[in-house]
C-alpha cells in the first residue's frame, strides 16, 4: 500500500473542500480521480504533497501516509516530500529561463553539484519524455519558446529529474491541443509501472484509457467526498453508487 489517506479533509477558512476522503493507492499503478468541477479533486491532490501549506487559510485534517510514513510527521519536511512526490499542473509552468536550467535548477537545490551528473540526468529525463531529439541542440534556448505540449513534457522531465516515487498530475492535458494531449497521455502510459501516479482529469475517456484504479469525487452537503472507488474496469462497468453511475454514463455532471 503506497499512499494511504485516512479521513482526509481540506478546508479553506470555513468552507470545506474535501471531507472524509479515504483512499488507497497502489505502488506503480495509475489512479484516476474524476468528478465534476469544484468537487475537491485538486484540493485532495494538493494535500498529498502538502502544497496546501502554501495556500492561505488552508487547513488539512486526517492522515496521509506514504510507505507508512505520516507526511505531516515531525521527521518529514515538505521540501523532501515534494521531491519524492512530484507535481504537474494543468497549465504548463516552465520557468522563464533556459531548458537546461529548468531541469537543473531543482537538482542543484537538492544537492547535485557535479557537472557530469547534471548533464547525464538532463539527457536521461529529456529522453524519458521524448523531448531530447527535439531540443538537444538548443538546451540554452528559453523554455518559453517551446510549444505548449513541449512545455508540459519539459515540466514532467523536470519533475522526473528529482527521481520521485509518486507523480501527481492535475489535469495535465486539459490546456493542450488534441495532438499534444495525445503525446502527454502516451508518455503517462509509458511511465506506468515506474512511478505511482495520481491523475485528476475531466476526460472520462482518458481516465478509462489510462487508469488502473478510479476514484469518483462528488459534492455532498457542500463538500467534496469520494462516492465511488475501485479497479477501473469495475468502477466504469458496474458502479455501485447511482450518482457515480449516472455521471460515468454521461448523464450527469
Amino acid at each position, binding site marked *: 500500500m503506497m499512499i494511504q489517506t485516512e479521513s482526509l479533509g481540506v478546508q479553506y477558512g470555513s468552507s470545506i473542500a474535501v471531507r472524509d476522503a479515504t483512499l488507497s493507492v497502489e505502488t506503480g499503478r495509475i489512479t484516476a480521480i474524476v468528478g465534476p468541477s469544484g468537487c475537491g479533486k485538486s484540493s485532495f491532490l494538493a494535500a498529498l504533497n502538502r502544497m496546501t501549506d502554501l495556500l492561505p487559510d488552508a487547513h488539512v485534517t486526517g492522515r496521509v501516509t506514504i510507505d507508512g510514513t505520516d507526511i505531516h510527521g515531525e521527521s518529514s519536511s515538505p521540501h523532501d516530500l515534494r521531491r519524492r512526490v512530484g507535481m504537474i499542473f494543468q497549465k504548463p509552468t516552465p520557468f522563464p*529561463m*533556459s531548458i*537546461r*536550467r529548468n531541469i537543473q535548477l531543482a537538482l542543484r537545490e537538492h544537492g547535485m553539484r557535479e557537472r557530469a551528473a547534471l548533464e547525464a540526468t538532463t539527457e536521461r529525463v529529456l529522453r524519458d519524455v521524448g523531448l531530447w531529439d527535439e531540443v538537444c541542440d538548443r538546451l*540554452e534556448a528559453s523554455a518559453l519558446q517551446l510549444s505548449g505540449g513541449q512545455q508540459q513534457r519539459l515540466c514532467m522531465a523536470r519533475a522526473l529529474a528529482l527521481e520521485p516515487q509518486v507523480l501527481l498530475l492535475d489535469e495535465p492535458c486539459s490546456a493542450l491541443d488534441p495532438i499534444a494531449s495525445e503525446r502527454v497521455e502516451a508518455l503517462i502510459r509509458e511511465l506506468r509501472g515506474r512511478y505511482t501516479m495520481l491523475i485528476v482529469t475531466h476526460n472520462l475517456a482518458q481516465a478509462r484509457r489510462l487508469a488502473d484504479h478510479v476514484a469518483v469525487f462528488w459534492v455532498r452537503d457542500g463538500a467534496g467526498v469520494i462516492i465511488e472507488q475501485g479497479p477501473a474496469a469495475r468502477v466504469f462497468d458496474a458502479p455501485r453508487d447511482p450518482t457515480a453511475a449516472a455521471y460515468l454514463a454521461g448523464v450527469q455532471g
Partner: protein
Amino acid sequence: MFGPQAVVAEHFRTVSKTLIWILLCILAPAVGCTPRTKVMHDHQESTTQPASVLSGRLTVTGSSTVAPLVAEIAKRFEARHAGVRIDVQTGGSGKGIADARNGVADIGMASRRLKAGERDLVAHQIAADGVGLIVHRDNRVAELTAAEVVDVFTDRSNNWQEVRGLDLPITVVHKAEGRATLEVFLNHFSLANPQVRADVIVGDNQHGIKTVAGTPGAIGYVSIGAAEAAIAGGVPIRLLPIDGVAATSAQVAAGAYPLTRPLNLVTAGGLSPLARAFVTFCQSEDVHDTVVSQHFVPLAN
C-alpha cells in the same frame, strides 16, 4: 555550461551582498568623519606673507543671483591660496541671511539690503545690480516718468504717441517669473506681476536685448551691465534714464541710479581671518573684471 540567465540568477545573491558592502563602505567614512571643521586656518597671518599661509574651508550660501559671481571670485581666491577651499551654495537671500546668523555658513549672500530686523548682521557690498529700461535705438522717446512706465506695462498706454513718441504700437517685453531683474523692476514701480500685460516674455538679458533690438516699438528692462555691453557691440538699443538719472554703470556705482540693488556678503559677529580675507578680496579692485563679466556693476572705490 550554464545559460547566461543562470549566471544572472546565480549572481543575485552575490550582487545583493556586494551592494550592502558598497553601502557600508560609503557610509563608513561619513559616519567616521566628524562634522567638517569649517575653518582650520593658521594663526600666523600677521607674519611676512599673510596670503600664502591662509588655509581652511569656507562655506558661503545664499542668493542665487550673487552665487555665480562669488563662485568665480572664490575660484580666483583658491588659485592664489593653495590651502583654501571655498564652497559656494545657493538657496536664496533669505537662506544666506539665516545661515550666516546661525553659523551654518561662514558667509551669507543677499541680493538686497538688510531689513530692519537684520541689524544684528553686517552687510559687505561687493557689487551692484542695476536694471535699465531699454527701447529700440530709433525710438525718439527721451524719458518716461514712473507713472508712464506703469501705464505702458499695464497696457493703459498702447501707443508710443501717448508718451510723446511716434505712432507705433508698444510691445511690452517682460521677464519670466523668478528672474532677479523682474523683482527689482516690479519692486521699484510697485507693481504686482499679474498686473503686467506682456506682449513677449523673455528669459535672460540677452534674450530681452535681442527682442527689443529686433522690434522698433518694444520696451523692456535688462541688467545695465548687459545692455551697455550690447550697445558697445553695436546692438541697436538705448537705455532710458529713470527719474532724470542716466542708466549707466557709473551712476549705479555712485549710488545715484534708483533702479538698483546691492549684492551683499552678510556676516555675523567675529570673522575668522580667512573669512575676513575673502570678504576683503571680494571688495577689492582685483575682482572688478569678474564683476563686469557677470554683468554686474563694480563699486567705485
